[in-house]
């Protein structure tokens, strides 16, 4: 289950499958940190792993009500592991953006807010 989580979270965050090393690192981190949630939390994680299409919406929806939910804690662990891996350095580093990129960033922000609303709606049925 944790291996599958690592795979899905990595694809969600950096659009690529993690190496075996990173998967092991994620599993080790989850075990060391003894993450636990209530039944509802576990159900959300399980739903997200079975239906990765909904992961961005669930992640967004949880920022409304359960900012520190189990799903978000697990995504953050994968995020931290990816951020401290040289292969993904460019995906986390700042860079010089052209003027046109400002527009893209603005729409991305609007889209992120829309995801929050959709995610909140989906969470009502899990």
């Amino acid at each position, binding site marked *: 289950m944790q291996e599958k989580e690592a795979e899905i979270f990595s694809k969600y*965050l950096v659009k690529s499958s993690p190496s075996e090393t990173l998967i092991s690192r994620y599993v080790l981190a989850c075990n060391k940190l003894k993450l636990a949630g209530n039944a509802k939390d576990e159900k959300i994680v399980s739903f997200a792993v079975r239906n990765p299409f909904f992961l961005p919406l669930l992640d967004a929806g949880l920022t409304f009500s359960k900012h520190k939910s189990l799903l978000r804690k697990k995504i953050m662990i994968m995020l*931290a592991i990816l951020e401290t891996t040289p292969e993904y350095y460019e995906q986390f580093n700042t860079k010089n953006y052209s003027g046109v990129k400002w527009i893209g960033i603005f729409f991305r922000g609007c889209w992120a807010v829309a995801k929050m609303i959709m995610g909140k709606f989906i969470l009502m049925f899990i």
Partner: protein
Amino acid sequence: MSDVDFIVVGSGCSGAMAAQTLVESGARVLMLDVGVKGAEDEGRVASDEKKIPLKDFESIRVEEKNQHEYFLGKNFESLESTESGSGVQLTPARKHIVKHVDEFLKYSSESFVPVESLAYGGLGAGWGLGCCVYSTAEMKQCNLPENEMLNAYDVVAGRIGISADEKDDADPYTIGKTKNHLAPLKIDANAELLLEKYNIKKSGLNQNGFFLGRPALALLSENFNDRKASAYDDMHFYRDAGNSAYRPGLTIDELKKKNNFSYIGNQLIISFSENEHGVSVKTFDIESKEEKIFTAKNLVLAAGALSTARIVLRSFNSEKQISFLCNPYTYYPCLQWKMAGKKIEQNKTGMCQLSLFHDPQGTNFDVAMASLYTYRSLFLFRLLNEVPLNFRDAKELMRFLLSGIIIMGIHHPDSFSSNRFMKRMSDAGTVTKDSFKMEFVLGEEEEAKIISREKLFKSAMSKMGATALKRVEPGMGASIHYAGTLPFSKEEKELSLDLNGRLQGTKNVYVADSSGFTYLPAKGLTFSLMANAHNVVKKLNT
């Protein structure tokens, strides 16, 4: 009779300065301390720290495969819950600063979360390095002797190495008239732009009581004794190979080379008592789990205002409620729009870039202070965890905005009030047989004053092109500035200090930390703590 002239309790900034002054005067000094180190090895630098390559932050990020071991911690300590517990915000290299605190410094509170330390170098091991002198009015309100303090600032600056700009608008609040300082440190592009905007809008901002400038930092801009100048490698939260940042452990390491100084670690101080020969100190050895007794002619308590109060209340078997001081603290992530969408430069420091002071009366009293930090080496994942958006979109947005982010941490001054107190309670389940109830609540008027002052700070930042995004209240105690537990008093009064730092009701017990301060300016207190520690012990006759 003991052959030790002074026992100094605590190895933090106050203890280190007091011990150095005493050792230099020829006194025989024994320092007692718990002294938790980052690893079991000898010396100040932990073995884990030594494994970090001598490269800058960016180069390590690009090249080092095992960087997660020191950035996240071998046991992923950096990813532990950020909801509660002391020191949760510390990087793995600094986690030892709060080790054993929950076990040995028990407290209960509904309103206050203190950060205390039993580490080698105390809280000074993680000090933000900001140095500020108190003004004449502030020293008067604190009951500190002005002329002696001004001399002591120079002595301390000559020992620890302070980089400061004596020609900018912040200097009356930072380095003041202290002469013994080094050239200022370079600031990064984000801070540089803010300073440029300040200079354009300066007259209006000054009229509203705002003054911006470079902070005085105990971080070296040039080589100093055998310490190296800052490499601008942005690695200070993880390691400091050239010892460019002052840490009290550096002073203790040097003192250990002297014949008239000795250091005994693992000692949790329980209490003291006086007899005709001097002072005896009872400790609990956290390794052997045994109680021990040490004797000396004099005792200098420098364990920090809260810990010193614990020792004194226990020694006097007092259950009296005592007041204390703590700077209320909030912070605001701000965005300087013009800097967004730019790559952050490779060489910078992660320490405070600028200091913004609010002195509405122009009297250098009742001043509020904001420390302005830029953000990079604590990683995006910490920041994204606080952003109310999904992680993927938040990551892309923050990559774009990060170069313009400024964290404005605002400290407010504090005066005594009955809403803040600590009290000793019996607790048979602890090594010390007690725990402490601490409460710190702001009155409605105080809270209103803080909110209205912070509005002015936000407005000042806005005039300089930076928008405050969110107000974050980390909770009372988060400033880590505590004082006033045993206030200076001209009258003979229990649980207070005379103006020389002697604990009233004792003959040979002195307090060299902030316990005596009767007011707590918003300016960082560490430099004044060290100056006071030097003053308290320099007059003592060995």
